[in-house]
């Protein structure tokens, strides 16, 4: 019998944790079989749908009906009502708080309406453990095109013209990075996928790797061809077991299909991928520290220049790209640089994936075109503040970023505007805070993070973060003075200007941004001390 329906069950880490998504999928298998629908309906465990707040998520295709908070005991009802009789189970649909109306289709839901999915194009759509599904949707067509029709320079030019910038936070032009690596002389070259996602509250890269591992593998092979590397390294956190497992399965399948290995597409190009595991050190997200860690050493950063593109892993030219950056590559090759450059804003084309969390109604993973404002993300996609509280600030850029208050809500999302607002793009964590949160306390929290993760190599960062943390604690304890505030500000500027790597240079950002936007909260605590 022909297949008439697909039951897509979210298999992202968050849904697996938030209830029993694995059991939901198993129950579907069992009940569908028992009802005699084993041949007509297929259960597919997919990657993250993004709407983590409402997990576990189940979507029925082609009906395009989206069920939320599905428990294993709901499965029988869905099979008996929806799949057998074609009646939608209203009880399990999402209800938009303002509308008081049940919404069954994703395109009607405000959470999805404004999203544009490029990096997440396959997440929540395909089975990440089946290369056949990836290929059916055009997977490896980009690699085939690159290997058979383009020279390495044409590939890096194409990426350069697209305007794609590094999604790990720095925003360095990807095409330029490829071009420098390609031109650097070296008997061997390497391409490294940076999957050491370390910002607290950020789970974009994990979701991409769990939901569409083949997309990243294909991109690494394309990058390898462009820069002249035959080995790709995935540097991934050991804390991401599911992502590692799915990547490993995907690599094995890619090899079996001739997409990795010797003479890919009969082009004479050889490429394969190995893993290196992180071991819990935030600084290893910085590319020189990451390379040291890949070599088995302490993950301390090095001076730049020379850049990794010139002298990297084991001394060879190495191109380090973040997971999300890579996830965009196959689509750019297939649809063209002009298509990509036309999305988002002129200086920051394309989209950005954000992990929306904190005091917001719709916690989840979203992909939005650059240029959208923080207000649109928080109030339209995110559904506003949880529990009817008042918005205080939004934090982007993790421990390297800053707090943006009410007056910055209309800031458009792009690399330069966020810097201008006293924060930064960062890797994509976006944490919303309400009136109950204290800016000084949040600052102390980030300083605690910075001081724990400072590798100790350079003095401004090692000693400076400790001293800033002490002052923040003193002020919070009600023992601070206005002199402390001045000292804190001076020290923050000094550490920013004199630290060796990105971690130290950006560690003062939470301090500087709160001193600027929320100075009154510091003064209030100091005022209390005087009284």
């Amino acid at each position: 019998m022909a297949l008439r329906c697909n039951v897509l069950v979210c298999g992202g880490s968050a849904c697996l944790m938030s209830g029993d998504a694995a059991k939901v999928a198993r129950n579907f298998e069992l009940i569908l079989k028992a009802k005699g629908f084993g041949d007509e309906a297929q259960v597919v465990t997919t990657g993250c749908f993004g709407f983590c707040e409402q997990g576990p998520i189940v979507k029925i295709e082609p009906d395009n009906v989206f069920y939320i908070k599905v428990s294993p005991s709901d499965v029988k009802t869905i099979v008996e009502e929806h799949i057998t009789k074609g009646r939608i189970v209203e009880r399990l649909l999402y209800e938009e708080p303002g509308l008081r109306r049940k919404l069954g289709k994703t395109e009607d839901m405000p959470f999805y309406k404004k999203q544009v999915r490029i990096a997440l194009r396959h997440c929540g759509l395909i089975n990440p453990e089946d290369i056949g599904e990836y290929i059916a949707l055009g997977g490896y067509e980009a690699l085939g095109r690159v290997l058979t029709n383009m020279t390495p320079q044409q590939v890096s030019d194409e990426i350069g013209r697209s305007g794609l910038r590094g999604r790990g936070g720095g925003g360095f032009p990807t095409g330029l990075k490829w071009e420098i690596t390609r031109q650097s002389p070296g008997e061997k070259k390497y391409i490294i996928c940076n999957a050491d996602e370390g910002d607290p509250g950020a789970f974009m890269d994990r979701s991409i790797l769990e939901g569409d591992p083949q997309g990243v593998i294909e991109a690494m092979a394309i990058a390898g061809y462009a820069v002249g590397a035959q080995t790709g390294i995935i540097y991934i956190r050991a804390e991401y077991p599911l992502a590692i497992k799915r990547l490993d399965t995907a690599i094995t399948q890619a090899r079996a299909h001739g997409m990795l290995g010797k003479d890919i597409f009969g082009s004479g190009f050889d490429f394969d991928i190995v893993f290196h595991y992180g071991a819990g050190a935030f600084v290893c997200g910085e590319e020189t520290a990451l390379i040291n860690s890949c070599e088995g050493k302490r993950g301390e950063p090095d001076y730049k220049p020379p850049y990794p593109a010139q002298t990297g892993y084991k001394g060879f030219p190495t191109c380090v790209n973040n997971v999300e950056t890579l996830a965009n590559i196959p689509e750019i090759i297939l649809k063209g640089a002009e298509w990509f450059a036309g999305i988002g804003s002129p200086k920051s084309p394309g989209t950005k994936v954000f992990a929306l969390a904190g005091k917001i109604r719709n916690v989840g993973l979203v992909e939005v075109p650059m240029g959208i404002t923080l207000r649109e993300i928080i109030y339209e996609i995110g559904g506003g503040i949880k529990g009817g509280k008042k918005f205080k600030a939004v934090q982007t850029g993790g421990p390297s970023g800053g707090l943006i208050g009410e007056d910055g809500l209309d800031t458009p999302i792009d690399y330069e505007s966020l810097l201008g607002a006293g924060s930064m793009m960062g890797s994509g964590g976006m944490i919303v805070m309400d009136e109950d949160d204290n800016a000084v306390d949040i600052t102390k929290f980030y300083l605690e993070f910075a001081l724990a993760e400072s590798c100790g190599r350079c003095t401004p960062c090692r000693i400076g973060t400790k001293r800033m943390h002490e002052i923040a604690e003193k002020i919070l304890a009600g023992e601070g003075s206005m002199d402390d505030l001045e000292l804190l500000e001076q020290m923050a500027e000094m550490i920013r200007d004199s630290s060796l790597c990105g971690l130290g240079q950006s560690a003062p950002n939470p301090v500087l941004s709160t001193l600027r936007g929320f100075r009154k909260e510091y003064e209030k605590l100091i005022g209390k001390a005087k009284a």
Partner: protein
Amino acid sequence: MKTGPAQTGPFPELGQYLENLGEEQSLIGILHRAQGLYGYLGRDIQLYIARKLNIPAAEVFGVVSFYSHFNTEPPGKFTISVCMGTPCYVRGAEAVLEKCREELNIGTGETTADGLFTLKDVRCVGACGLAPVVLVSDKVYGRVVPEDIRRILDDTVKEVK
């Protein structure tokens, strides 16, 4: 990497693994393997690895102490991990961690005298929709409030008995 002759020695599984290292294998990969086999990286294991790889023990210790994933003490039977990512923090994770310290009567990073529980504060586990999150070994508890801790610990102890 060059290694010494095959031996049965104090860590036979690790010894065998070290005999068959691939070209791209690094010290960190070896340490992951060793911790996977023995649960932690005591001084004796670190020395053993250093000798087998013919590198100074200080180099091994330098790497072990740099990364928070590596333990140098045997962990308890259960590891209580309180997520201290920002989303969990703003939703009250600190009070949850404090309650854990109080109930277990140990500090963060310590193990109870009976060897049952190790308490850890961990970086974001990425289940921010469930914040604050507590993990007991691999089991996930979401939207935890301090009052839940006693019950979570009791349930865990019950499971062993």
